[in-house]
C-alpha cells in the first residue's frame, strides 16, 4: 500500500486547463512522426501535397495558436486514479469541468456540446466525458483527448457472433473503415476494442487510439492482426483526405479483454490525422 496522499482538485483543474490548450495547438510528436513516415512512403503526388498541407497546418497552428482543427472536440478524459489518493478542496468532476470550460474560453476553442434534440449549443463545451479507472498507488494520471465529431461519427460497436472469430473481426474493421472512406479525415488511426461487453468494447477502442502511433500491441496475436488490418486498409487506395494514395491509416491499435461465452463485442473508434491528446501525472 502506498501512503495516502492528498491531491487538491485545484491542481487537477489547472492540469486539465493546460492539457486542453496544449492539445488544441500542438500535435503529439508520435502522430507527426507517423505522418512523416507516411510521406516518405507515399507515391501519389496529390497525397504528398495533402500531407504537406497537413504539415503546414501543424506549423501555423503551433506558431499562431490557431487550433489545429476548427473542431476542437468534445473533452474526453481518461482518469487513472490511484486508490490511495484523497481528493481535497472540492469535487473532482466539477474541477475537471471547470478546467475544460476555462481552456475552451481562453484559448478561443470551439464549443461543440449541444442539446441532442433541440441542437441548442451550451456555449461552454461541457460536460467533459470522463472515464475513471482505479489503479494501485497514490498518483493520478490524466489523459486529455480532444475528440472531433467527424471521426467519432464514423465509429461503432458491433456485437459479432463468437464464430466470427479473428477473421470476422478483421473483415468487419476493414470493411467499416473503407466504407467510411474520406469522411473521418484520413489518414486515420483506428482504435479497436475486442471483448469486454458492449460499452467496454467502445471504451477500449477509444483508449487504443491514444497509444503511440504504430507501436504494436504487446500481445503478438493482436500485433499480427493490427498489421493485417493496417495493410488491408492502406491497400484500399482511399489516401490522405480521400484523394487517393497509399496512406489511408497511420496505425491500427487493438485492445482486448475477456468477454461472455455468448458474445464477441467489437468496438471501432476512428481518430483523424489531427489526433490530439496530452497527458500528465500528478
Amino acid at each position, binding site marked *: 500500500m502506498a501512503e495516502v496522499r492528498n491531491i487538491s482538485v485545484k491542481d487537477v483543474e489547472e492540469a486539465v486547463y493546460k492539457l486542453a490548450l496544449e492539445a488544441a495547438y500542438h500535435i503529439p510528436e508520435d502522430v507527426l512522426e507517423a505522418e512523416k513516415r507516411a510521406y516518405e512512403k507515399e*507515391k*501519389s503526388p*496529390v*497525397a504528398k501535397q*495533402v500531407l504537406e*498541407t*497537413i504539415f*503546414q*497546418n501543424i506549423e*501555423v*497552428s503551433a506558431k*499562431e*495558436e*490557431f*487550433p*489545429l*482543427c*476548427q*473542431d*476542437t472536440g468534445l473533452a474526453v478524459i481518461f482518469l487513472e486514479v490511484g486508490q490511495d489518493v484523497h481528493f481535497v478542496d472540492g469535487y473532482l468532476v466539477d474541477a475537471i469541468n471547470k478546467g475544460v470550460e476555462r481552456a475552451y474560453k481562453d484559448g*478561443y*476553442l*470551439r*464549443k*461543440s456540446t*449541444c442539446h441532442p434534440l433541440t*441542437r*441548442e*449549443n451550451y*456555449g461552454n463545451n461541457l460536460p467533459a466525458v470522463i472515464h475513471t479507472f482505479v489503479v494501485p498507488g497514490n498518483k493520478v494520471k490524466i489523459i486529455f483527448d480532444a475528440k472531433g*465529431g*467527424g471521426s467519432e*461519427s464514423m465509429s461503432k460497436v458491433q456485437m459479432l457472433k463468437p464464430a466470427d472469430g479473428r477473421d470476422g473481426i478483421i473483415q468487419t474493421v476493414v470493411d467499416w473503415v473503407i466504407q467510411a*472512406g*474520406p*469522411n*473521418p*479525415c484520413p489518414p486515420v488511426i483506428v482504435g479497436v476494442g475486442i471483448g469486454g461487453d458492449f460499452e467496454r468494447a467502445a471504451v477500449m477502442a477509444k483508449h487504443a487510439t491514444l497509444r503511440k502511433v504504430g507501436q504494436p500491441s504487446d500481445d503478438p496475436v493482436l500485433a499480427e492482426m493490427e498489421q493485417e488490418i493496417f495493410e488491408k486498409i*492502406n*491497400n*484500399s*487506395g*482511399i*489516401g*490522405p*483526405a*480521400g*484523394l*487517393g*494514395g*497509399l496512406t489511408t491509416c497511420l496505425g491500427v491499435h487493438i485492445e482486448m479483454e475477456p468477454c461472455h461465452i455468448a458474445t464477441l463485442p467489437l468496438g471501432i473508434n476512428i481518430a*483523424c*490525422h*489531427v489526433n490530439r491528446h496530452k497527458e500528465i501525472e500528478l
Partner: protein
Amino acid sequence: MAEYKLTTPLTDEDIIKLKAGDKVYLSGVVYTARDAAHMRMVKALDEGKELPFDIKGQIIYYVGPSPARPGKPIGSAGPTTSYRMNPFAPRLISLGQKGMIGKGKMSDEVKQACIQYKACYFVSIGGAAAVVGSSVKEAEIIAYPELGPEAVRKLVVEDMPLFVCYDAHGNDLYEMAKKEWANKYNLA
C-alpha cells in the same frame, strides 16, 4: 486535371467547365451553414419564408469555425463532414445554389442534383483548418447568431484552395482516386 480561379457568384458556364479532380482557387463571398442552420433554412422554406441570403449562384461552406482571436476575422475554419447535409442540399441546389464546400462523401441525390441543376461539390482538406481559415479575409454573422459556431456567416475568401469532387457531369473524385490508387498498389 486543370486549375481554375473562380469568383462567386458562379454561373452555369463556370460549373460546366469543371471536372472532378480539377483544382479551384475560389474568391468572393461564401456563406457558411451546417447542420442546425440547414434545419432552420429548410424550415423557413417549408413555412413559405425567405432564406437569410439570396442563394442564386452562391456556395455554402459546411463549416463551424472556432472563435476569432482579437484582430482576426475568424479562427480555424476547415470543412466539416458533408453527408449530414444530404437531406437539405438537393433542395437548395434546386433553388439556384451552385456549390457546396465540405469533406467526405455525399449522397446519390446530391450527385443527381449537381447534374440536373448544374452545381458542384468542392472538397478541401479536413483538419487543415488553420491553413484553410487563413484564406478567409472577412467574416460576418448574418443569421441565427444563437447557434454559435453553427450560425450563418458571410465570408469573403481569397484564393481558397479546393478540389472539384462531384462535377455536373456525374463524376466522383473520391471513387476515381480510390480506384486509381488501389489498382496502382496491386500492380506494384
